């Protein structure tokens, strides 16, 4: 166990390989964008029913996970928990990388990505997307500021203020991300105030999970390990967040089931909707909630080598599955324009539709992950990151702050 662990050298096996993979995935994503731009969105599986497809599922997942990853780094500076202080730089970097990837995919999936300057100069402030221009740019600036206070000894004393600012801003940002959906009164899956806080809780869970995975991978490549008590603390936190997320999902569905006008939609999402119930129960519930909780809390499972790392990976997969159900499933179910009536039309009114993403969409979606990976790896190489810090008393009693 070491006090201070630097990022492993570039010659460490896997580093160049990983960067190459990330660059390749990103390049394929860009190629897909050029293809989509040239031919129009007709080359995608999206249509006038499935308006937001796989790229946005992945992008929103990254946005939520990224803003949550920042939180892990703020527990130390803002709340004074010494044990978490060394996590701040990596957490900040992950937040930036994930958000950059997510925002880029959203911008490249636009019908007119050449009009991003228009989006930056024309802002409708009744629109959450309009606020997002301010919120995302501000987030990047604030996190960079926060990282500066963390990594520069001269700026260290501003760390708590910067951290507090980052915390408040990220809460507003993630509330906004949830409200993108929650404010839509037209859609049966959304139209609810619970969506915004639910996204906040998702961000806690997925942010902690992604941080855990990345930190563990880096430590392993450096040949170091975390103190088992700290690892257990992180695992506990992850478990609490998974339970909290499940609670919100439970309340969301229970309330919907209670309303007669929502019953058909719930039946579709939970039972008869084909891929959606499979992803919800198999992906989010089984893989993303039950199995991680078993791995984190049940002694028989805890004994498995790297059980908390596996739990984190499963949480992320479950989260992605849930985002797919939440975003695409909501569009598969027809809008209720004539409540109570059977409806038929040339525009798929009243009919449940099936979404099949095309190759271009899949490449674009993964391209976002590729971008985040490349940003993370290059920043770790270029900036003075330390995985664990001389300034944090890790060798001392980690159970007492």
């Amino acid at each position, binding site marked *: 166990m070491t006090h201070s662990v630097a990022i492993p050298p570039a010659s460490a096996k896997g580093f160049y390989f990983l960067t190459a993979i990330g660059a390749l995935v990103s390049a394929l994503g860009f190629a897909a964008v050029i293809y989509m731009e040239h031919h129009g969105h*007709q080359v995608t599986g999206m249509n006038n029913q499935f308006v937001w497809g796989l790229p946005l599922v992945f992008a929103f997942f990254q946005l939520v996970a990224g803003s949550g990853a920042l939180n892990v780094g703020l527990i130390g500076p803002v709340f004074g928990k010494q044990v978490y202080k060394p996590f701040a730089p990596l957490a900040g970097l992950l937040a930036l990388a994930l958000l950059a990837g997510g925002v880029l995919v959203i911008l490249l999936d636009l019908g007119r990505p050449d009009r991003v300057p228009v989006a930056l100069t024309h802002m409708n402030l009744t629109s959450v997307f309009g606020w997002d221009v301010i919120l995302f740019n501000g987030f990047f600036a604030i996190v960079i500021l926060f990282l500066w206070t963390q990594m520069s000894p001269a700026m260290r004393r501003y760390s708590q203020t910067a951290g507090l600012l980052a915390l408040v801003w990220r809460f507003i940002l993630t509330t906004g991300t949830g409200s993108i959906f929650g404010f839509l009164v037209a859609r049966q899956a959304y139209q609810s105030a619970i969506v915004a806080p639910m996204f906040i809780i998702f961000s806690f869970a997925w942010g902690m999970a992604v941080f855990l995975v990345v930190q563990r991978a880096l430590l392993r490549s450096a040949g170091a390990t975390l103190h088992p008590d700290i690892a257990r603390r992180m695992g506990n936190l992850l478990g609490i967040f998974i339970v909290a997320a499940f609670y919100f999902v439970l309340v969301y569905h229970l309330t919907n089931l209670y309303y007669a006008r929502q019953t058909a939609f719930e039946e579709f999402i939970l039972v008869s909707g084909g891929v959606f119930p499979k992803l919800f129960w198999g992906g989010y519930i089984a893989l993303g909630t039950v199995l991680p909780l078993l791995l984190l809390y049940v002694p028989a499972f805890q004994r498995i080598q790297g059980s908390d790392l596996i739990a984190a990976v499963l949480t992320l997969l479950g989260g992605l599955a849930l985002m797919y159900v939440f975003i695409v499933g909501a569009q598969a179910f027809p809008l209720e324009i004539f409540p109570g009536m059977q409806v038929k039309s*040339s525009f798929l009114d009243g009919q449940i*539709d099936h979404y099949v993403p095309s190759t271009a969409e899949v490449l674009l979606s993964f391209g976002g992950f590729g971008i985040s990976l490349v940003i993370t790896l290059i920043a770790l190489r270029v900036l003075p990151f330390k995985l664990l810090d001389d300034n944090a008393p890790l060798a001392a009693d980690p159970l007492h702050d």
Partner: protein
Amino acid sequence: MSAPHDKAPDSGRRSFIGAAAATGAGLGVAALAPGLQLIEVSAAGTPSTGASSDKRWGMLIDSNKCASGCDACVKACNRENGITETLQDVRQSSQWIRKVDLKDPKSGREHSLPVLCQHCAKPTCVDVCPTGASMKRADGIVLVDRHICIGCRYCMMACPYKARSFVHLTLTEQNPEVPRGQGCVEACTFCVHRVDKGQQPACVEACPERAMLFGDLKDPHSEIAQRIAQEATTQLRSDLKLDLGVRYQGI
């Protein structure tokens, strides 16, 4: 040398100065805004005053008169607005107006009616548009300003009536009076290019059963305002309280 006040005012000099000043001003105006000068000279007509909130355009659709197999309104709309492209996946094609067939599952009663953009007074699409491209004109017509539409499709997620379509391919056969293009969102405009000339929307004119009525809701003497005042009409999803410009009968 004579004192200044001895001399009578020189009217010739004054008129010269006046003329020179006027010419100078005229030249100055011409120099400052030569384009403006020329435009005034060459204009064949003067621009209209534009849309005004004194009017609110609306539509009344009597679905009792609407024939089930008929889609004359749809064909007329496609013809008028240049919606002629065919796509491999028909779900990607633009439909500004569509015929919807309804059946009451309890009673078995069937009827059909056209559904189009409802031109809400409180449009959800306008609220959510990040750039303000989705807009409501002063006279109530809801439009997409395709000069600033970035194609994010958020308005399509927000619309309760699935009124909006996204253009999935490159277009070349647009009607010059109805610009539309790849990557932007679009919807029924109440044929605003016709309405501004005093004409009726294409669908209204084409309906063989005269089921559709278009007019100024704020004009108490218009046929539509009188009928709405005297007969029962409904708005789609009236629970959402969006104050629609389109009303139906017979639902």
